């Protein structure tokens, strides 16, 4: 059971990161802030999950990275979506909606 949970969460986290980047290129810290804000402080992404996820996504080719300067004039590594990443986001989103609809319908019955 716990293993499944992690998997689900891993895939979900990937999707959230991709969604966050849909709004534009962002560095790692900014992504975690964004997700926190968008989820109304419910989802707090730990750095221990965030960065491995970012490296994994980059390895898959869904995001790419580039060093730039943040608004505080600090050097930071910015990530942005690739075309394949965009497509992946759409796929994962429709999957998620299908999945959650199915779970909801199960929970509604009985």
């Amino acid at each position: 059971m716990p293993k499944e949970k992690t998997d689900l969460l891993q895939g979900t986290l990937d999707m959230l990161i991709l969604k966050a980047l849909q709004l534009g290129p962002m560095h790692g810290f900014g992504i975690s802030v964004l997700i926190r804000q968008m989820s109304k402080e419910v989802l707090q992404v730990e750095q221990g999950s965030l960065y491995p996820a970012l490296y994994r996504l980059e390895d898959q080719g869904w995001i790419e990275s580039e060093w730039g300067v943040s608004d505080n004039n600090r050097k930071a590594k910015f990530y942005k979506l690739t075309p394949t990443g965009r497509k992946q986001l759409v796929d994962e989103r429709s999957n998620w909606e299908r999945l959650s609809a199915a779970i909801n319908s199960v929970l509604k019955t009985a």
Partner: protein
Amino acid sequence: MNFMNWMRRGRSLIQALFGKDKLDARMDDEMRSHIEMQTQEHIEAGMKPEEARYAALRQFGWVESIRDICRDQRGAGGFETLRQDVRYGARMLLKNPSFTLIAVLTLALAIGANTAIFTVVNALLLRPLPVRNPEQLVQLITSSGPSQMNYDFSYQDYQQLLDGSRTLAGLFCAMGVNSSSRLTVSSQSAGESDFARGQGVSGNFFQVLGVSAALGRTLAPTDDLDGSPQPVAVISHDFWQRRFAGDATIIGKNVDFEGVPFTIIGVMPPSFFGFQPGENPELWWPLQMIPQIDRDPSGRRLKAGYDSFRLMGRLGPGAATPQAEAELQIVFQRSQNQAGHVENGSAAQLPKLQLRSGQAGWSNLRRQLIQPLIILTAAVGVVLLIACANVASLLLARGVARAREFSVRSALGATRRRLVRQSLTEIFLLTSLGGIMGLLLAQGGTRLLLAFIQVQSNAISFKIAPDAPVLLFTSGLCLLTSFLLGAVPAMRSSTVDVASSLKSSAGTLAGNASSNRWLQSMVVAQVAFSLVLLVGAGLFIRTLQNLVGDTASKWKNVVQFSPDSRERPSAAKMKALIKEITARLETSSGVNAASFYLFGVLSENRITQKVLPEGYPQGPNEDVRCKGVWAGPRLFETLGIEVIQGRVFTAQDELAAGVTNSAARRVAVVNQSLARRYFGNGDPLGKRFYIQDQPEKKFEIVGLVRDEKYASLREDPPPTFYVPFLQEPRGGPISFVFRTGGDPRPSMAGLRQLVGQIDPSLNVKNVKTMHEVVNANVRQERIVAQGGGFFSIFALALACLGLYGVLSFAVAQRTREIAVRVALGAQNRNVLSLLLGEGVKLVLVGLSIGLAGVGIASRFLSSLLYGVSGTDPVTIVSVSMLLLLVALLASWLPARRATKVDPMVALRDQ
């Protein structure tokens, strides 16, 4: 899209491998910037800067483990650990230079020996010819019995087969490579001529093989037309370089080959060596030129009855070997019937034509060398096993010494898999180093091996630069060795007991039962293998001695040579020359007796005739073939053949008896085998016999001589008759022999001059002492005896090293125990006998296993031995004694060291 993906992944992998530090730094930067931003956020939320920073760091968790996870995600995880392992392994090996050196050297020698033998086997037996589609080539042979192979055909056979076959796309015919053909380059003075290895081939030779010339053109069928051949020749690349210094204007140059002018029309590429591995012909000429070369207008050699041609063909498209063989068999039988070779009307007795794969070319050397090479291959395989056992013991010993290190690493969190992988990496490093060194050593080793198997005057030259199959073989051997050695750490890892090994003091894991047992079994295995090898070598050495035995002493100081003349003398001139040369030889200083005869001793060529005594009732299937020697007077004296009864030839016998003149009796001398066959124990003197095709020519037996081995040292001497040559001259190559009182070498040196005085155009060739002739004949046995001897000595040395090492190690491990014993009152001799006893016990166990191995091996070897059985007790006992003695010595040295243990020092040291 997918391709871009792969490109990117490849790039990042390479980055991960080579730019590791840079990537790490980048990651650090990223983490740092995150922490700073987090800190900033905290400060803006109202925290004090110090606290903010701590909070940020705390939230970040353990940086190191995140780094590791990220690194893994980066996708180069496996390589990372491999790199670490290799670096660590290399460092450990360098730290123990003596261990590394011994291990690598042992492996290098064993792998090198294996590679050397494989190189020769590959070049001689396996490697395909450098021609187009060699797998389509087939070699034609005939066989009249399971071990009666004949490789030669007549030109008539060739023509019949060529015309009659539909399944073959091509069939060519070639003569043997004649290494004593004279070649003179016209531009040079007449005195400067040279020998070239020439080969007469049919016009389609190069076409069927599927090769073209590097310069000029190859021979074509139009060059080889019956009756109008072209005097053109093609030369090999090496010959072009050696003789013509790579002259660019070589095409169209004229040379004088065997007295006939030829034009060179082509040069072959460097990789082409003909179709016979081991023979390196330098010049190919169209064989319709035989009448000119032989100076024989009738072209006898192209007629029926002269079997001097080798045939090879190429299968046509879609044709399979059995199909072609069946078809060619029919054609061949028809041809034999027509030529009147039918004997007793029974088709079943005709030789059968067979096809062999011609992919690796044509060879009759293969037949001779395959057995000794296989034996040597087995021997070096065993040597490799012994070497592995040796290195494995070294590893085991070192492993025990490093047990602490493994325990510590294990306690720090290394998985067992990781530890085993580490050990395997070290092993792999060792074997790779050994393999590379072995490859280098094999170069020299191959040369040595080829020197062993020299064929008389032909140099067997192969390309011995390591090519793909050899490299593959060596790599495979390294891998195999790694697996064998890798069993050791895999076993050991199951016995690493962290707590106890950490607790006990440095290095003394006395009585670690499992590894001790392994060490002991290694030694036992080494001793057993060494015994088998040594006994095998001993048996072969005795076989060699038996074969060569008395012939060596009987033919000491006997020399054989052949005359060499630029022009071909007529029969009458030949007779006069022979008489003159023999006379001169007899009168030259140092020579006791001289004579001559057709062909040579221990030569494969001999005259076989059907012999029937007067009134002899021949049985229906009785074999009445005998060997005939056409000899000069004093042959028996020169060769040391004992005359048992009667007399030898005299001058009177030499009067030529024409067909009509029956006044001069035809005389003959026979050997014991012949007399036994036809006359049983009766007296053969005075009886007469005739040769089957000529019943009117009767020979009277005037003498009986002892059996003599001519053709082979192994076979029993066949029934042989001797006829005075000058009474009954016959075509064929003449050999002269003479016996000197003392050292034959001065006489050998003066031969050229002696012959030149008689006729300036005469020279000598193939000057050999009988000792050399005998050696060439026992080449197979010599190879195995010498090679086997060498390898078994090497194996013995390895086994002794192993024994010495294991016992030294045991002494070191048991220092404490020995110290205690001494303290308790043990004398030197007690300690000695304790340790020696252990050593001897191991050796004895090894010997008994080895004896069982000898029993098995002897079953395979007995067919190759001569005069000694596979389980010859003398050999076995003497070898066992030798092994025991050497092993005792190897055990004694460390045992002696044990007695020097000072109990106080030893006990305190713990």
